[in-house]
């Protein structure tokens, strides 16, 4: 028997608010299944379970704000007997009294749930958990609400608008969510600057070959199958990370733990402010089209603030790209407990020497921030040189 607990989704997380159960007692669950949705400073996070078994009981109620480590559910290993003795201590949810009789003011999450592209639930209507919650509370039929979220999903503001003739207070709620996320960023970045002895190396890389190859490839394809230059940068970084171990892993308890696989964090800027860096698992093994699909999916869900718990905690190296328009270069701050961060400036056409001639070429500045407790300039140099080498033969990526 296992107790499924409120997970820590980062060093800065102290508590989360349970907003939705995706399972019920008696359900069979497998490692990696999403069992609950928890509202955090980083949005509504889908919580995965890390064991197989059967849900014996749900021990925490919706709306309850629970500290990291609090019991959420009891999971029986398959074939195991349920605890039968009435005296058997069953974990009690924290704040039970509040949770049992939800008082909206007291139990509403500090961070307002944001819109999410959510699969149609039992009602057959795509709606975010927060929208379902409010609709249930106010007795509103979700099917009668016009959805303004991604894919026409009903989001909280739609339900609020339907519930009241007063306009939904969208701007202030968004501002509040951004303020909460800013606190999470501040905590992580202050810790990084305090604990990690950063050093940075930059290299200007000629990406003309990569860009030209991609333009030819994309010219034959419909928009849905096109790939962005950023996906090539991500793939090159993932392959380089697999080769230069000192850039890929975590620093914990005074020692570096190299990672066995490359889970590449991608820094996603949110419209209106805020930044989040969910990870793409085993990014070095993905074909370019798979990398692009993974990035699209991650960006869409990050913007909707609907990520999975593993995506927030599994990253082994993060890439932050300024996109096709923007500044030439950036020196980033490492996202702890990772030990390196690659920042890619916007590619620009610049005079460049090729052979003995000066030519206009598309170039981009790659800046690696690394952790001096783990690596030196030598390894950082190898990492950047490897990316340069890989980007000269884009067809091989």
């Amino acid at each position: 028997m296992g107790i499924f607990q409120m997970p820590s989704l980062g060093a800065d997380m102290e508590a989360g608010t349970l907003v939705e159960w995706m399972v019920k007692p008696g359900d069979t669950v497998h490692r990696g299944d999403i069992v609950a949705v928890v509202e955090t400073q980083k949005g509504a996070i889908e919580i995965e379970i890390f064991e197989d078994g059967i849900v014996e009981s749900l021990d925490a109620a919706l709306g309850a704000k629970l500290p990291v480590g609090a019991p959420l559910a009891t999971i029986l290993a398959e074939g195991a007997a349920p605890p039968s003795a009435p005296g058997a201590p069953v974990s009690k949810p924290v704040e039970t009294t509040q949770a049992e009789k939800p008082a909206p003011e007291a139990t509403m999450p500090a961070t307002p749930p944001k819109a999410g592209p959510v699969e149609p639930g039992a009602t057959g209507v795509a709606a975010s958990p927060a929208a379902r919650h409010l609709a249930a509370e106010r007795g509103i039929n979700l099917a009668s609400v016009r959805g303004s979220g991604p894919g026409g999903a009903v989001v909280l503001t739609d339900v609020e608008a339907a519930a009241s003739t007063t306009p939904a207070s969208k701007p202030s709620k968004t501002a509040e969510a951004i303020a909460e996320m800013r606190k999470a960023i501040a905590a992580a970045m202050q810790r990084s600057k305090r604990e990690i002895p950063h050093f940075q190396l930059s290299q200007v890389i000629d990406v003309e070959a990569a860009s030209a190859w991609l333009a030819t490839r994309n010219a034959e394809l419909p928009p849905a199958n096109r790939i962005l230059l950023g996906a090539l940068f991500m793939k090159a970084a993932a392959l380089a990370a697999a080769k230069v171990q000192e850039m890929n892993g975590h620093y914990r308890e005074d020692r570096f733990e190299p990672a066995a696989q490359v889970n590449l964090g991608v820094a996603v800027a949110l419209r209106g402010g805020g930044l989040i860096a969910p990870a793409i698992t085993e990014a070095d093994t993905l074909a370019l089209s798979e990398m692009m699909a993974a990035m699209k999916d991650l960006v869409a869900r990050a913007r909707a603030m609907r990520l999975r718990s593993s995506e927030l905690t599994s990253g082994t190296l993060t890439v932050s790209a300024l996109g096709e328009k923007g500044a030439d270069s950036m020196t980033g701050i490492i996202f702890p407990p990772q030990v390196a961060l690659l920042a890619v400036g916007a590619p620009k056409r610049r005079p460049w020497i090729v052979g003995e001639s000066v030519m206009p070429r598309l170039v981009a500045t790659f800046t690696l921030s690394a952790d001096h407790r783990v690596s030196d300039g030598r390894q950082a140099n190898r990492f950047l040189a490897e990316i340069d080498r890989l980007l000269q033969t884009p067809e091989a990526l």
Partner: protein
Amino acid sequence: MTEQDFRAAFVEELIKIAPDLEPDEIGDNDHIQDDLDLDSMDVLNLVAALHARFGLNIPEADYVRIATPALASAYLAAELAA
């Protein structure tokens, strides 16, 4: 469809990608990247949405021709009239 219809359709797809934008506040000459802050993935998603809606496959070289609502409505009207 008139150019005005195309503008409305373009703005509708734009709002799906950037739900924080207010349709009434988007100017004819607002640049989708410089003024409305779309990134390259947003632009790609917009082009894909227009492809799905109108069956028009906009090549990368023509992205500059849909960079503002005014440019886009003229472009869509011209391409789809042909």
